[in-house]
């Protein structure tokens, strides 16, 4: 199957700064694709180019095989965008907002009303449809912001931090909506700093920094780059010198406590890890060393993200 979205060697410069540097990736129909990167990494610039808001200095974007041409507004008909900042009119009701935005995508008459009713229902705002949105809570505004982007049934939906500042209920509801759209065949590009959301929603992700693509793969494959770690905190400061815990384990001193750490490179070695844990616990018991606590550090996108982009603060 041909990719729905093809991003090919995209470059965008602002003076001397290269915001996006030869960025390439594909998104399949019905796929949820995560776009991760620290602030200023080039995510927003890339997304603005994909939705036709910004011209690329070089490179190409194709949607359903057709080159995205900024001079042809109709080429944006198949794209939906949920912007990070709320983009709704506070002095219009929820229904008026949706009617207006849907009409811009050439929906009219009964079809328009149907789509608006469906969208209101989807985001749980039917009861407040005729209230001014200026009086809405943050979560309600976010849900309306989402609804305004999907009424025209886009084939590609770009979400930029769609759950910022919302309560857990609204977040769960929005994620459910996104998954429902994905199931119905809409391709999703999901940009967020909430890594756990990306892990839940997306099957593939790309990590970019300084405009460059650092990693792009399925979530499972990406997580293989991060080891599975186990940490045993011992109830004493020192361990007997004669005690050997094997090659994979190391004993470190953390204040008054001795800490045993060991890891496997990926989750595929789960069996080996179990075996290591059993063996180490047996050895510790044999030397009468008690274990105060056990902590595991599972591989996740956040650890991978920090590993690839570093801990330096970004502007």
């Amino acid at each position, binding site marked *: 199957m041909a990719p729905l979205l093809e991003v090919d060697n995209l470059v965008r410069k602002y003076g001397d700064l290269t915001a996006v540097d030869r960025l390439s990736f594909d998104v399949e129909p019905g796929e949820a694709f995560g776009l991760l990167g620290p602030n200023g990494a080039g995510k927003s610039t890339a997304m603005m180019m994909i939705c036709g808001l910004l011209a690329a200095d070089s490179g190409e974007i194709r949607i359903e095989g057709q080159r995205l041409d900024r001079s042809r507004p109709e080429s944006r008909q198949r794209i939906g965008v949920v912007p990070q900042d709320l983009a709704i009119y506070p002095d*219009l009701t929820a229904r008026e907002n949706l009617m207006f935005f849907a009409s811009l995508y050439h929906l009219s008459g009964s079809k328009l009303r149907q789509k608006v009713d469906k969208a209101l229902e989807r985001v749980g705002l039917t009861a407040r449809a005729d209230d001014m949105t200026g009086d809405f809570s943050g979560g309600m505004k976010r849900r309306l912001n989402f609804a305004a982007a999907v009424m025209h049934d886009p084939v590609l939906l770009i979400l930029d931090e769609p759950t910022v500042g919302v309560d857990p209920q609204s977040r769960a509801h929005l994620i459910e909506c996104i998954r429902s759209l994905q199931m119905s065949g809409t391709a999703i590009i999901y940009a967020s700093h909430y890594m756990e959301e990306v892990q839940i929603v997306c099957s593939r992700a790309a990590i970019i920094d300084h405009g460059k693509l650092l990693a792009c793969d399925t979530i499972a494959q990406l997580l293989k780059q991060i080891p599975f770690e186990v940490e045993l905190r011992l109830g004493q400061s020192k361990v007997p010198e004669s005690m050997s815990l094997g090659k994979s384990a190391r004993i470190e001193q953390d204040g008054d406590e001795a800490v045993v750490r060991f890891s496997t490179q990926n989750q595929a070695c789960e069996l080996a890890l179990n075996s290591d844990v059993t063996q180490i616990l047996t050895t510790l018991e044999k030397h009468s060393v008690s274990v105060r606590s056990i902590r595991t550090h599972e591989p996740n996108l956040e650890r991978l993200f920090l590993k690839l982009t570093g801990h330096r603060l970004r502007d």
Partner: protein
Amino acid sequence: MDAFKIMLKDLRLLSRDRRALIILVAMPMVIIAIVGSSTGRLRANREQSRQGLTIEVADFDQSETARRLAGFLASYKSVMVRRAEIGDRSDATLLKRNEVEAPTDDIDMRLVIQPGFASRIRELSTTILTSPDESSRHEGLASVNLTLISNETAADPVMEGLARSLVKLSLQNAILPVLAEKVPSFRGAARDSVIPEPWEESEEAKAAPTETGNRVYQFFIPSYTVLFVFFLVNIMGRSFLGERDSGTLRRLRIAPIAPVAILMGKTLPFFILSLVQTIILMVSGRLLFGMSWGPQPWLLIPIMLCTSAAATALGLMFSTLAKTESQVSSLGNLILLSSAGISGCLVPRAWMSPMSQKISLFTPHAWALDAYSELLTKELPRDSVIGQSCGVLLIFSAAFFVVGLYRFRAS
């Protein structure tokens, strides 16, 4: 079609913005009423002087030459000559009073023709009589027994100078028969010169019911209408800024619609609002302040359309330039007040220096005011003047819109 959708949305938003509506419609009415009633009298005198100089002629000479002088003076279209009632022309006290006392408020100047005026003309040499240079007559009009007194409350050096010049020109014509007697070459001119009738024509004109309306408001209402139509610049700036700040402008740009449709959609509601504002002010002007719509009221339509087009296009351009609320306020007010001052919205252009009058033509306001002035204050408005003003306003509109579109695309 897309522009129409955006227009409807903005009209709905505007209808919910009571503050903007009050600023655009109610405020001009209040200001016109306040300024009109407080400074109306002075303006009325000045306006009357500017548009039709009223000169009272006190003829103590009662000679044919004096009658010719008054007749030629009355022949100028912008001059209305009124005969001062004189009982006994030999009454020296009456003559003195006419020469010293200022005319009443409804008269701009008084020309006193002293006894012996015609005799004095005959006494003067040909050289002096034909000299265009006043200095050769040493004492100016007084040297030929003429006195010109101006109205103190509406004293205006320009008007006084104009009246003095008109009297001198009339005098040149009036003395042609005298000259012809002294210089044969003037006989033809004296024979051909038609002696206008000074009193009847002027008094008939005075008595004729003319559709000139209340002159104060003939100036105030168009001026303040143009001023407040251009206040849209600020309101449009705020609307654009609000759209940008709320993120909805980005959503519009992401939608499958052309930038020009977005701009048209953002501009049209204000164009309509501007027309509504103008119509309300014109109708109120007529009903409340007795203002006239001129002899061809239908010509108001192109003037209103072109003025609104220029104002909204300027607003659009400004909206794409201003980036913050403070820029909208400070820059907007600067543009509005300076252009209003330069253009003649606050002070009639006729009162400005020639240089200022030329500079004012760089503002659309001035062309709009010219068109309104031609229609509302002239007995026979010239279509060519109104057409030219409307054409220039459309050129301004197109230029502002193109700059706005360029800025919008580039942003």
